[in-house]
């Protein structure tokens, strides 16, 4: 069984899902318009506070966070097989759930990367944020890393809400807001009480955002690499947990009869 072949076919399904949501026109004038106007509002809050530093902090945080929150859509996409009626077919297929689900949901971190880059570009132009080519090139792979690690977390969430699919959208909303609140997007994570700050060290975005801020503020390579490595470990850990949970949920579904043949 070729894992990569199954993944590729899953990716094709995911691309079709994406086209069902967005055309280029609707992505630009619907999705990006919403993202940008929200991001503008947050950055303007820095202007209300009369602080250029606050404004820059909010700009970078929001430009990266929109990528992460877009990647979170993968959690929702995990549940769509139940609505298609393909979930039981994937469970019993020799290749199992994992490769096909990974493939199908991979389009969303890609959307996250595109969203984040576009937001960065527009915001830096609109607010006159100074971004060197060197910094931009160094930040790009870190943006990819943040979206990838959030993808792992999203898959874990998707596996959890797979049993309670009615909660999928709510879970997406709440997790997105909480990531933005606590993971250093609008305020440093150290602003929050110590237990909360400790907890978010195990969430995606926290370390990746610090790495990106480090690159943009000329922090040392060591600092950047450390944070980037932590982000990679966090993301990979969530991915492993997600795959294990997916399998476990499938087995439990077989045992308790929650896998529906007729949608």
């Amino acid at each position, binding site marked *: 069984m070729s894992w990569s072949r199954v993944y590729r076919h899953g990716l094709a399904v995911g691309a079709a899902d994406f086209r069902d949501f967005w055309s280029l*026109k609707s992505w630009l004038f619907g999705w990006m318009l919403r993202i940008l106007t929200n991001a503008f509002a947050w950055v303007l809050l820095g202007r209300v506070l009369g602080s250029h530093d606050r404004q820059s902090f909010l700009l970078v945080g929001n430009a990266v966070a929109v990528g992460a929150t877009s990647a979170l859509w993968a959690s929702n996409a995990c549940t769509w097989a139940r609505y298609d009626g393909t979930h039981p077919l994937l469970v019993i297929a020799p290749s199992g759930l994992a490769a096909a689900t990974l493939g199908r949901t991979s389009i969303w971190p890609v959307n996250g990367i595109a969203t984040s880059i576009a937001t960065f570009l527009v915001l830096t132009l609109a607010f006159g944020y100074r971004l060197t080519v060197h910094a931009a090139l160094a930040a790009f792979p870190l943006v990819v890393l943040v979206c990838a690690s959030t993808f792992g977390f999203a898959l874990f969430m998707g596996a959890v809400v797979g049993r309670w699919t009615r909660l999928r959208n709510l879970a997406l909303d709440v997790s997105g807001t909480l990531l933005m609140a606590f993971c250093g997007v609008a305020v440093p994570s150290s602003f929050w009480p110590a237990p909360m700050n400790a907890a978010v060290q195990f969430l995606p975005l926290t370390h990746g955002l610090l790495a990106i801020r480090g690159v943009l503020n000329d922090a040392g390579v060591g600092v950047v690499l450390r944070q980037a490595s932590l982000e990679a470990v966090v993301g990979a850990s969530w991915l492993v947990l997600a795959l294990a949970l997916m399998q476990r949920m499938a087995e439990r579904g077989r045992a308790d009869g929650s896998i529906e043949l007729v949608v």
Partner: protein
Amino acid sequence: MAGSAVLVRVGRWLRVLRGAARAQYQLTLGNIEDLRPIIGMPLGALISVGVLVHSGRSDLASYGLVAATLMTIGQMGLFVASEIVFQERNGQTLELLVASPTDLGLVLGGRVTVLTALGLAGMVESWLLVRLVFGLSLAIYHPWLLLLTLSATSLAAAGTAMLTAALFSFGRQVRTLQNAVNGPFYLLGGVLVPTVFLPSWLQTLSPAVYFYWSANLLRAAFRPEAPSTPVYGLFMIALLAVLAAAIGALVLRRMIHHLRREGTLGLS
């Protein structure tokens, strides 16, 4: 004679409104999807108030509260209420509604009003969240202004939802339109950041958005000094509500006629 005929008709309208509102309330309570904005949007206060408190500007914490409240009402209107007609088409109940002798505009009006009114819970939740997380008890200096503004805003959101529900009934464009309108609406309305911080050419558009008047009045309700021209602000919210509802009812009528002509009232 004419007077009693009017009374009978008004009585009929009220019965339809009540029946529609009650059904929507029952539908919403049983559907967590409809309750998403009420649960999720107030959490946004954590972010906005967090920024303000972190910057030593707790005095501006009401900005975050007002933003979370208005976005909750706004999302109930733009995302939940605006999908009613589309959902009815999808569920093949739109044909049944059209085939009934009642006015579809009335039915829609009753249903969207309930949804935007439920959005008012956003104020309570946000206030409690700010109290719990930041220890800030935001004093309401002008409670009547707050109540009237919230009520008017809820009605304005309902009126706007009449229009957006009609426009969104085609389905394919729903998501694009919702997203295209959503962000600009809040930005132009100064929901989080007062419009004085927007470029001047954008500021000229703001008064056409009911959020502009609502946000200013609600922020004023949390300031000790007497608000300036509250009556005018409330009047503008009400005017925008009525205008949106009237245009919405007209668009809905045209839309239904179009769908009847094309044979696509149902989606199957």
